[in-house]
């Protein structure tokens, strides 16, 4: 076999029609700025809603004289701030260069997936659980304290919504963690012996 035996197939490969869609620099720039805007809006919405909720807790703490309500709002404020801090800490740790070598890029992608999986599978612990003391205190006041809604269906409605939200969140996050794990498994199954020493 000579070095040139495969030249015809190389030529055939390079001559194939690939239906390249035309895309101008200005269009790509427009699409990129559109994506950035969507990302920024989503970030503002997420952070804005958390800040609003924390501001509402602060308002309740300052306005109400009722110790039960005040302690509930304080616990919610602390739990919410902690959850927000954890969210930012856990979601902002990895960044990559788009032009890394393929081996480095695939290894990075796997680490990124593992991080995402861990975020989804432990979210209940560091996001939902810190909010529980505050939520339980407020609900307890509604059920057992001197709340004007005591004895009505309103506390049950709130409890139902809260339980529904927790169940939905846990199922959804588990589903997302499973999706990440499947992709990690797929990636592990596709790993090629790189011929490089470990860690390279």
């Amino acid at each position: 076999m000579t070095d040139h035996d495969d030249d015809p197939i190389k030529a055939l490969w390079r001559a194939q029609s690939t239906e390249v869609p035309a895309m101008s620099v200005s269009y790509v720039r427009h699409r990129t700025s559109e994506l950035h805007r969507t990302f920024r809006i989503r970030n503002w919405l997420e952070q804005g809603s958390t800040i609003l909720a924390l501001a509402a807790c602060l308002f309740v703490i300052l306005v109400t004289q009722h110790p039960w309500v005040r302690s509930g709002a304080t616990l919610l404020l602390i739990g919410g701030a902690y959850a927000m801090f954890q969210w930012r800490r856990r979601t902002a740790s990895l960044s990559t260069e788009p032009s890394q070598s393929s081996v480095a890029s695939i290894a990075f992608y796997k680490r990124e997936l593992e991080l995402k999986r861990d975020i989804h599978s432990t979210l209940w612990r560091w996001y939902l659980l810190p909010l529980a003391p505050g939520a339980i205190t407020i609900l307890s006041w509604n059920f057992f304290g001197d709340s004007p809604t005591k004895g009505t269906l309103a506390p049950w409605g709130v409890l139902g919504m809260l339980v529904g939200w927790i169940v939905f969140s846990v199922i959804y996050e588990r589903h997302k963690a499973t999706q990440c794990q499947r992709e990690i498994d797929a990636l592990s199954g596709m790993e090629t012996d790189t011929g490089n020493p470990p860690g390279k």
Partner: protein
Amino acid sequence: MPRPAGTTDDADRLFARALAEFGSARARIAYANEADRAQRADLQQEIYLELWRSFAIFDGRCSLGTWVYRVAHNMAARHVTRQHRLSHRELLNLEEITEPIDPHDAARQLDDEQRLALLNKLIGQLKPLDRQIVLLYLDGLDTAQISEVTGLSVSHVGVKIHRAKRLLVQLYEGHHS
């Protein structure tokens, strides 16, 4: 001293150059990594956008070609992984493929279109890194350049290319043997 592309004009110029010089290579990468037309268009668009974004930090430490190939192949590898999760299809190393051509196909005369279809089928069976090596080799890159793009050692790429060449020759000349 290498510097990032810096201004948007620099990035635009690099992007336009990359399109002119490597537009068809990038399209072939998308073509080889996604058979479905609509999903291929999405992949091509993803590669375009990532490439444009990447030029903001292009520092000239590698050639434009190496940069374009790395970005395009990295995006394609991620796409293949995501699709693989859904399809449960087993992908193979170059060493695991013994017969690149079906005996039924080998028995008949193949035209170029059929050979291309078989070649795409062969590439579609490969794991991402092996797939990249074959695609880069078909695009005419030498062992050192492929090593630079993939991050594999030159000797390892050499072994892979040797195996790939045998498969490609078998595929092209299958009907003669």
